[in-house]
């Protein structure tokens, strides 16, 4: 159906894609696998007309095409579901779909006609969404369905799904896979972009591995195991790492007693949280996103104050601590959204690295009034080496760095302060395997040095990998606890679904 021949895309001197070939057959699920920055998204943006390739040929259904705009791609039947949805939140589902029907005849909007066609599509592919609901009231999974309906409405024959499961729960992801099956049954093809190996194995017919802008290999999914694919992707042997788990319990450093916050809100509050965190352990917080994890992190780091209950840090009532008090007392925070909370995008690497230590005598005179640029410079160079931050220079604005390198900056800033207590929210979200391993190693090192660490993640594999003790959150409550060593998976998933278990010791 589709053939890409020697596609190359250069951004200035940087070669994002280099002689990439790709063949996709009818009714095929073809996965593009690669680490972040391997060129998957660039390739897809070329295919859907957002970028023009520097050179190379695109052959679709035996014709060569010059993709100069998204309309060209759409008109020949290529549609993309972007990682960040192209939906207008302030409009209804129907209005969003009607936006794809602008080229049809007539000046006026014809809601009845569009509804008719959409209902047919919904029946055929089992895509249930209320057409009159506003998009911002829909769950992420439903929004994704709207995107797929949009594509099908334009008679797309090749659907590109850019990391579609990154934002979905496991159950929603299975629903998506059922839809993909239905699509391929109708002889439509799907290009699936992901770096989650498990699901790639489950859904793909063929897999093309990209590394640093080049195709490594194209294989049949059934011929390879997940480990072999991981190796192809990273380019070196990665053994699935197993960390030693800690079982003995040291003294308690942080305790929450019956803490509540916005109790009524199931997906943005906490109710009756009891929690003890010990020195030298990693406590994993699992659960589907949006069940109070963000609020828990906010309470622990002082961004929010508990409405009820007590917060005890190092044996002292810390209910009235401000954020700055927690920082001074050695609480580190790796926030969930590095661009919104963790870093200042328009500032350079050096300045971001010392943000929390500006009052320190190392970096300034008279506690923060006069900065010592030279010392900051030296320190930043040192951190760049130590944490392997890849940037053209420490003067580069951090917004231009990749997610992994941004996260390393945060890690350097937080861990170099020798924190006693670390809250890490989704520390490896959106990062490739190499960077994720680096982050996990660093957290384990901090634990072994005696810090208490709370790792919150929606990725259950990540929690199991690093945590010594795992709690599961659901609708603002803690459902129960399992040990980090050989955890009972059935128990974890039933807790994620809302079943509550007794806890012996909080």
């Amino acid at each position, binding site marked *: 159906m589709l053939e890409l021949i020697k596609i190359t895309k250069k951004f200035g001197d940087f070669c994002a894609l280099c002689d990439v070939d790709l063949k996709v057959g009818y009714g095929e699920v073809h996965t593009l696998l690669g680490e972040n920055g391997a060129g998957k998204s660039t390739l897809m943006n070329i295919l859907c007309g957002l*970028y023009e390739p520097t050179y190379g040929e695109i052959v679709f259904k035996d014709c060569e095409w010059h993709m100069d705009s998204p*309309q060209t791609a759409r008109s020949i039947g290529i549609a993309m579901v972007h990682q960040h949805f192209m939906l207008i939140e302030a409009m209804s589902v129907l*209005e969003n779909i009607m*936006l794809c029907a*602008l080229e049809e005849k007539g*000046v006026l*909007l014809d809601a009845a006609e569009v509804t008719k066609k959409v209902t047919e599509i919904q029946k055929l592919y089992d895509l249930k969404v209320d057409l009159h609901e506003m998009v911002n009231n829909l769950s992420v999974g439903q929004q994704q369905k709207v995107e797929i309906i949009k594509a099908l409405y334009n008679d797309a024959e090749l659907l590109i799904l850019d990391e579609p499961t990154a934002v979905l729960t496991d159950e929603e992801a299975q629903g998506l896979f059922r839809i993909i099956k239905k699509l391929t049954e109708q002889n439509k093809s799907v290009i699936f972009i992901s770096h989650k190996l498990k699901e790639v194995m489950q859904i793909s017919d063929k897999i093309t591995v990209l590394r640093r802008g080049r195709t490594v290999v194209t294989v049949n999914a059934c011929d390879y195991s997940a480990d072999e694919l991981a190796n192809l992707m990273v380019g070196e042997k990665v053994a699935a790492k197993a960390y030693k788990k800690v079982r003995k319990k040291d003294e308690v450093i942080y305790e929450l007693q019956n803490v509540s916050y916005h109790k009524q809100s199931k997906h943005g509050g906490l109710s009756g949280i009891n929690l003890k965190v010990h020195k030298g352990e990693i406590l994993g917080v699992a659960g589907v996103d949006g069940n109070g994890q963000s609020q828990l992190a906010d309470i622990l780091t002082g961004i929010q104050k508990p409405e009820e209950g007590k917060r005890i840090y190092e044996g002292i009532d810390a209910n009235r601590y401000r954020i700055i008090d927690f920082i001074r007392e050695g609480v580190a925070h790796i926030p969930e959204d590095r661009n919104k909370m963790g870093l200042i995008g328009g500032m350079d690497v050096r300045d971001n690295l010392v943000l929390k230590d500006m009052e320190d005598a190392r970096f300034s005179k008279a506690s923060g009034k006069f900065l010592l640029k030279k010392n900051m410079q030296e320190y930043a160079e040192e951190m760049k080496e130590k944490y392997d931050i890849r940037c053209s220079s420490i003067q580069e604005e951090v917004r231009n760095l990749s997610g992994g390198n941004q996260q390393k900056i945060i890690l350097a800033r937080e861990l170099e302060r020798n924190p006693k207590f670390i809250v890490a929210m989704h520390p490896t979200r959106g990062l490739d395997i190499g960077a994720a391993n680096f982050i996990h190693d660093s957290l384990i090192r901090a634990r072994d040095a005696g810090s208490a660490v709370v790792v919150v993640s929606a990725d259950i594999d990540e929690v199991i990998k690093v945590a010594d003790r795992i709690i599961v959150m659901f609708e603002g409550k803690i459902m129960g606890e399992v040990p980090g060593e050989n955890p009972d998976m059935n128990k974890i998933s039933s807790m994620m679904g809302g079943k509550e278990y007794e806890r012996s010791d909080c």
Partner: protein
Amino acid sequence: MSSILTVAFLTGLLVAALRMLPPLLLGATGEMFSERCGLTNIGLEGIMSVGAITGFVVSYFIQNPYVGMLAGVLSGLLVNMIYAFLTIQLNADQVIVGNAMNILGMALASLIYTTVSKSQSGQLQSVTADNYFVLVVSLAVVVIIWFYLYKTKSGLAFRAVGEYPRAAETLGINIQKKKYLACSVNGILCGLAGAYLTNVYITSYVSGIVSGRGYIALAAVIFGKWKPKGVLLACTFFAFLDALQLRLQVADASIPYQFLQMLPYLCTLLALSFFMKPGSEPKANGKPYIRESR
């Protein structure tokens, strides 16, 4: 106080409010239209000033208020193209350009008036147009804009640009074209609003005749939640307040007139602080759109 609740007072109030309404409504509708496409134009006051002086001068020399108002419309359109070019083509900061438009517009109006009045003798007067012509036009404009935004394909695309331009672009919508349309309509409506002031509201020109109506119109857009009906209600509310303060000045001399003059603006502030809810503003409002940026 008994003099307030008479039939004469109330009819007078109504008539005054209807006279106040068109410039506010035209300006606010134009601005709402512009913001629905992502262009915040705080230069309404300046554009209205240009419309006012052009409308007056042309009307004075030709002695036809309708030709005068047409000239005001064209001048508004023309002067707003400066804003359009800077913000759409060069991605300049909209607030700064809008501010510059205000200063430019008001200064330009004074310059033109001084030049013209030097060559003529006596107080300049023009003929008046029909009192309700522009009112009808402005109400029709609200309906037409509502119809365009909510009932046509082009209007749906237009709103998409104001909410999420990148998505609009992937759907093949020409963003620049929509934004130029937004600026043209806004310029035309503000030009008419200004020309109304010098051709209907009064038939001469005085410095500072727009007297903050451009800013009130901005507030009306927010107060009206960026919707045609809301903007109409907000403008009616502000027009009534303005009429009321004028009437009260005449009716009751014991209240200092400065206080009464302040009332509409005070109410604007109060209205905005109590009724303003986040979330109804077009998402991409005020942000320049740069292609191929990530």
